[in-house]
């Protein structure tokens, strides 16, 4: 079926080249592509620039093997036949459409908002109740999926959790200790990021995107910069390509180390948990050696990198990297040799490859189920060499598999950063900013659609932008890997014990604010 526009992932395409179809054809086309091995990158509403209130759908899909993207859009509509029953990966996207634009996906099995929760209204209601001393109506309760029956009980957790973590609400339907169903209700961290980006680019866009998910600052910053560069045709100097990749891989090292430590902590294996907390900090401090900020904020700028490394600094970072890498390897190996840890992690929170594919999982969670999904390979950001490297997959899909994927990726990232630092130290070309970098700050080419995919440490980060007649963002979609993967956690927990939840949750380690935006 050729109802979609196909293009290479690095090209920005004219928005008018997208075929315009009706809702049913869009559904048929998406279903066909998913059957052919494509996956859904984004499905979102697009306000028409001329007419108010008329909203059409825009859909972007990716084919990893051929590095191709497909895009299509609909005429303005108010409802369409839901894709979710046959393509579960559309689930949250359709709920988002319903929430943001009031478009109804007919026949959606669980239609409710994604980020809108009654708490905001209740806080307001309480306040005005105090002021006017009158009873205010409190909005109807949030509907949760319920399992009925004798001895079935419900457990509610959150939004504020026991540890120092972000807020989210989990509603378990249990039979004894066994979880029949888990519903993840998020939205508490919603800050309105996409609305702040609309009508950009502005100087504030990049810092705001760095705060989309603080632990993925470099990942989101890279996606934003790459997107602007693809739109304006800026070619980034090789030196800053290397610096960016070093930043991205250091982020992966820090977080993988932290996650493995957290898995150790939740299995009661405290040595690794304690060591990894410290080693994670060592990797963050290496990022700080690069740009002053432990999370890599300010490292990137559209058109290049904002900080450079001299050969002495490269040598210094390399030796510290080796030391931290050795410590991380040692700490993780001890844990992965402990029978108690292996026993605890095996078979818990397992997902099979088909479920993972249906749900559209990305990143570590997908690779742990045997899906070779890694944007570093299917959509590389540059032509930097990366031969000595392939996606690290496991088959079991359980907590142990997710831990092993991370453990193997530590080695890869360590090697990559070390190689890149060596290249950087001897590279004669000192330019870190493209000569025409200022183009990305002015108005952008009008009426274009562009996509950026970056493999962050959790998985693929996807930014999609569409510019309007005057070269501003008509829509800017941010899709954090967590948006795809939260349903994966919910499904993985079915049939497990409720006491397995913390461990499963750590093994996914998804972002609340990345989901909530």
């Amino acid at each position: 079926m050729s109802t979609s526009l196909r293009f290479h992932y690095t090209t920005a395409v004219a928005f008018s080249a997208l075929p315009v179809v009706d809702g049913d054809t869009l559904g048929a086309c998406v279903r066909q592509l998913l059957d052919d091995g494509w996956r859904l990158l984004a499905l979102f509403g697009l306000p028409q620039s001329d007419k108010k209130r008329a909203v059409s759908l825009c859909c972007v899909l990716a084919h990893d093997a051929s590095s191709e993207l497909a895009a299509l859009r609909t005429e303005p509509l108010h409802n369409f036949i839901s894709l979710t029953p046959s393509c579960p990966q559309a689930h949250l996207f359709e709920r988002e459409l319903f929430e943001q634009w009031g478009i109804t996906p007919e026949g959606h099995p669980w239609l409710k908002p994604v980020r809108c929760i009654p708490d905001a209204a209740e806080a307001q209601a309480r306040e005005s109740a105090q002021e006017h001393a009158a009873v205010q109506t409190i909005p109807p309760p949030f509907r949760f999926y319920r399992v009925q029956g004798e001895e079935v009980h419900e457990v509610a957790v959150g939004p504020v959790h026991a540890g120092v973590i972000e807020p989210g609400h989990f509603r378990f339907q249990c039979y004894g200790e066994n979880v029949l169903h888990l519903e993840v209700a998020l939205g508490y961290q919603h800050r309105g990021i996409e609305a702040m980006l609309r009508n950009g680019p502005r100087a504030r866009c990049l810092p705001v995107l760095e705060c989309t998910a603080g632990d993925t600052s470099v990942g989101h910053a890279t996606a934003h910069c790459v997107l602007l560069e693809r739109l304006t045709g800026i070619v980034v100097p090789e030196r800053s390509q290397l610096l960016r990749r070093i930043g991205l891989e250091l982020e992966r090292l820090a977080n993988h180390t932290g996650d493995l430590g957290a898995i150790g902590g939740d299995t009661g294996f405290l040595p690794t948990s304690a060591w990894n907390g410290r080693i994670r900090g060592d990797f963050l401090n290496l990022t700080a050696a690069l740009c002053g900020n432990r999370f890599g904020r300010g490292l990137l700028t559209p058109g290049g990198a904002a900080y450079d490394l001299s050969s002495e600094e490269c040598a210094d970072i390399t030796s510290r990297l080796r030391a931290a890498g050795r410590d991380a390897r040692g700490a993780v190996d001890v844990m992965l040799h402990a029978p108690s840890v292996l026993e605890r992690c095996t078979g818990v929170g397992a997902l099979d490859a088909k479920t993972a594919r249906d749900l559209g999982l990305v990143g570590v969670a997908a690779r742990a189920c045997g899906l070779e999904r890694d944007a570093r390979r299917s959509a590389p950001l540059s032509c930097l060499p990366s031969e000595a490297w392939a996606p690290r997959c496991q088959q079991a899909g359980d907590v142990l598999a997710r831990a092993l994927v991370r453990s193997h990726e530590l080695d890869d990232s360590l090697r990559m950063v070390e190689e890149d630092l060596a290249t950087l130290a001897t590279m004669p070309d000192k330019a870190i900013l493209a000569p025409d970098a200022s183009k990305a700050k002015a108005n952008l080419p009008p009426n274009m659609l562009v996509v950026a995919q970056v493999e962050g440490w959790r998985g693929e980060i996807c930014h999609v932008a569409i510019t309007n007649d005057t070269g501003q963002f008509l829509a800017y979609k941010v899709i954090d890997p967590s948006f795809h993967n939260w349903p994966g956690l919910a499904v993985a927990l079915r049939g497990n014990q409720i006491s397995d939840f913390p461990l499963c949750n750590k093994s996914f380690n998804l972002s609340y604010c990345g989901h909530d935006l």
Partner: protein
Amino acid sequence: MLRIIKERLQQKYRTLDYPRKKPALSPRYHGRPILTPVNCGACRACYAACPAGALLPTLGAEEGTPTLDMGRCTFCGACRAACPKGAFTFSDEHRMASFTREGLLVTPGVTPQVQPHPENFRIFRRSLKLRQVSAGGCNACEADCNVLGTLVYDLGRFGIDFVASPRHADAILVTGPVSANMRLALLDTWHATPEPRIVIAVGACAISGGLFRESPQCHGGTSSTLPVDMYIPGCPPNPWTILDGLLSLKT
């Protein structure tokens, strides 16, 4: 078992004798900003460059002279790059916490004053239990609070701990710009904390709303909802900055 012990020896002793020893920070670290008085004339380059709206006109000074509000600043350094006269420097000073909002304003030519310690905090001198609430935070401030529990910082040796319930807490430590959806939970947590209680705002978002100050989905920081006793600036603050702030509550 032997394997674990062998590895334990490899991993060494890592806790820093803070505050007696100064932590080694990256030479590129942006610490407390210092503004030198210069003649700004008609130049407003720093105002235009700042993504956080952290530069404000200085009251009573020559027109155009900026005051830097650390409560909004993300320490990005754009102002330093923009200023043709080199008025901005970022020192390596990590101690930036303040008991007052005004204490976060950096004015050209004015050296920061040592602040008097509020009397009513004496009760927490030997033990301070914190309940952390992330109210729209991006997980960077949260991560840098979490890290205080690791070997390098070892928060517990100072008698400070993060606890699981507000009922056990002496203070709530807020991060994030207070998203509309978290306001209720934040208020409930505060009400559940026994008095006397301290409110600590960590990070630009929690102090002023930070980059999200103007978003209709956010309330512009903790003080919109709760009375704040201590401000720890940064985006996110360095863990040492947070630790210094917490320790200053106990002296």
